């Protein structure tokens, strides 16, 4: 079952947007304008855009550390996401978090966490709250293949499976955790089968096929909303860049990268829109141009934004003690 062509076109826009956003971030990370570490999602656009597309705004989303793309699609004013990455006072979190910590409670972007695996158990709480309050919001965790090594993942899926909590484990298998291939650190051929041990439904999908991503995710979300408990989906994909902007990624073979570049999720969607759905080239190139403008205007906003007021550093430590009482 394929997606409606209008939806696919919109997803194309979103994927191109992620690509462009990340490429600009790459430049400004490498030239030193953006401080700290920046983890880019180039190559993973289909999984990022497709998963978010299968969700409602009220679903709780826990992006992983490679989560710029997810964060700009959740409903937050995108320039505020970029400003956060630059550490500006206009950033969605006032510059206190940066690239590794983007949250927006208003759209239920529950934020990335610097401690891998940690959000798998936090998500139990938002899922539990859905059940407690009797609504149907699903808690969706984005996590890398490497992250599956953490003990918290076990405590999470064990509890979610036992209590049939509305949780979705989205394992974005880009095959490496920094330099370590998942086959060197995990015993499974496909990580999805890990969920078999808990009787949790699971499947492997082509993470570069945005339609497959949307469909698998929608099925799982549906199951969670119906009270049938968690699902784990493994999205097979690849990150084109190193672990962080600037990492030369000497640990992996060039041919492998090339092979995955050939499977570019953006190009692939474009081909489908042109060849199968018969969109004229012009519509797509207009989208691409629009995206460039959009990202440039965000960039302008960021570069012109003021630094945070230093006093901000001291705020929001406690709600009920000190300043904010």
């Amino acid at each position, binding site marked *: 079952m394929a997606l409606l062509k209008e939806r696919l076109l919109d997803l194309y826009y979103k994927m191109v947007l992620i690509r462009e956003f990340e490429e600009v971030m790459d430049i400004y990370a490498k030239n030193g304008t953006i401080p700290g570490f920046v983890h880019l999602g180039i190559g993973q656009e289909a999984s990022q855009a497709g998963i978010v597309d299968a969700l409602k705004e009220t679903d709780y989303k826990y992006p992983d550390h490679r989560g710029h793309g997810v964060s700009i699609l959740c409903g937050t004013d995108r320039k505020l996401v970029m400003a956060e990455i630059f550490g500006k006072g206009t950033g969605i979190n006032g510059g206190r978090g940066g690239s590794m910590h983007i949250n927006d409670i208003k759209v239920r972007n529950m934020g990335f966490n610097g401690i891998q695996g*940690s959000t798998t158990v936090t998500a139990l709480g938002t899922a539990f709250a859905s059940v407690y309050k009797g609504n149907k919001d699903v808690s969706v965790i984005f996590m890398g293949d490497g992250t599956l090594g953490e003990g918290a993942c076990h405590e999470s899926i064990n509890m979610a499976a036992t209590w049939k909590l509305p949780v979705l484990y989205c394992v974005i298998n880009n095959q490496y955790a920094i330099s370590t291939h998942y086959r060197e650190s995990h015993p499974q051929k496909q990580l999805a089968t890990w969920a078999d041990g808990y009787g949790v439904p699971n499947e492997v999908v082509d993470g570069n096929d945005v339609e497959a991503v949307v469909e698998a995710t929608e099925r799982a979300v549906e199951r969670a909303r119906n009270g049938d408990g968690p699902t784990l989906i493994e999205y097979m994909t690849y990150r084109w860049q190193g672990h962080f902007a600037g990492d030369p990624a000497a640990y992996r073979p060039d041919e492998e990268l090339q092979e995955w570049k050939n499977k570019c999720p953006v190009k692939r969607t474009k081909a489908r829109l042109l060849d199968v759905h018969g969109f004229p080239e012009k519509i797509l190139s207009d989208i691409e141009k629009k995206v460039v403008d959009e990202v440039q205007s965000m960039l302008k906003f960021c570069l012109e934004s003021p630094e945070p007021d230093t006093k901000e550093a001291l705020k929001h430590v406690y709600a009920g003690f000190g300043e904010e009482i």
Partner: protein
Amino acid sequence: MSMRKISFGKAINEALHQEMERDDSVFIIGEDVAKMGGDFGVTRGIWQKWPDRAKDTALSESAIIGLASGAAVCGLRPVAELMFADFIGVAFDQLVNNAAKLRYMFNGEVSCPMVVRAPTGSGIRTAYHHSQSVEPWFMNVPGLVIVAPSTPYEAKGLLIASIRNEDPVIFLEHKSFYSIKGDVPEESYEVELFKAEVKREGRDVTIVATMSMVALAEKAAEKLAEEGISVEIIDPRTLFPLDKDTINRSVAKTGRLVIAQEGPKVMGFGAEIAAMVVEDVFEYLKAPVKRVTTMDVPIPFSPVLEDYVVPTDVDITEACKAVVEF
């Protein structure tokens, strides 16, 4: 208020019942807290009244704390139980890196109103994995609140205040207290957080004591009174963030400070109190500060060994005399 004598454990139980009654968003979660009513019996009767608001979990402390913090962000008010405070080690990350920082991470747009109840301290012969004093592990982590009652009255009122507080609270229950009785009002009431209590007024020396050490300090004070030494006892009750003023004022008055603390000496909570005093009211100090603490060893099992390493009222008495005679 209608007072009657109930135990420390019962006081906590009553606080939970009254808060569950008052506020639908309060729920309890932990190992054996629901059907059995808790390993120490503190959560009895809750599951029977509110079966959907009392959850028995697997042995998964990270999941318990993680779930609590996620639910708190959604506006619920979880009261999680760790069967022993020592087990906080396997959930340390969740408290330190997640719960404590959530509000800061979200730029002040969320809060994390959760309580983690944790039976703490030594004295019931359970050796080094069930007898630790964990407060020093957390007092360097801004965003957390650590509460430590020393009477049934405080236990009830501080727990109610903790549940209503907007930040993550580690609520320490000294496990030797559970069956100790004291006056507790039937009605619901709060004991103010972040406020130290002057348990006894005096002129010559201030003792800062918490939990199990308060009664020892009182015993020491009685003995010292006979010898003409007047002791002021302060119980911080909230260990972190600390009510600095009350302690500093007392030391400024008496000029002498003894800290009675369970748990190893090095970097115990007494370290912070001594440091604060020598920074803030140095000019009033007439004598060295003294820390009376557990020895710097893991807590051993055998009663003779455990009793040897834990401080006594005699240790406190002697420390007070030493600073008065300095």
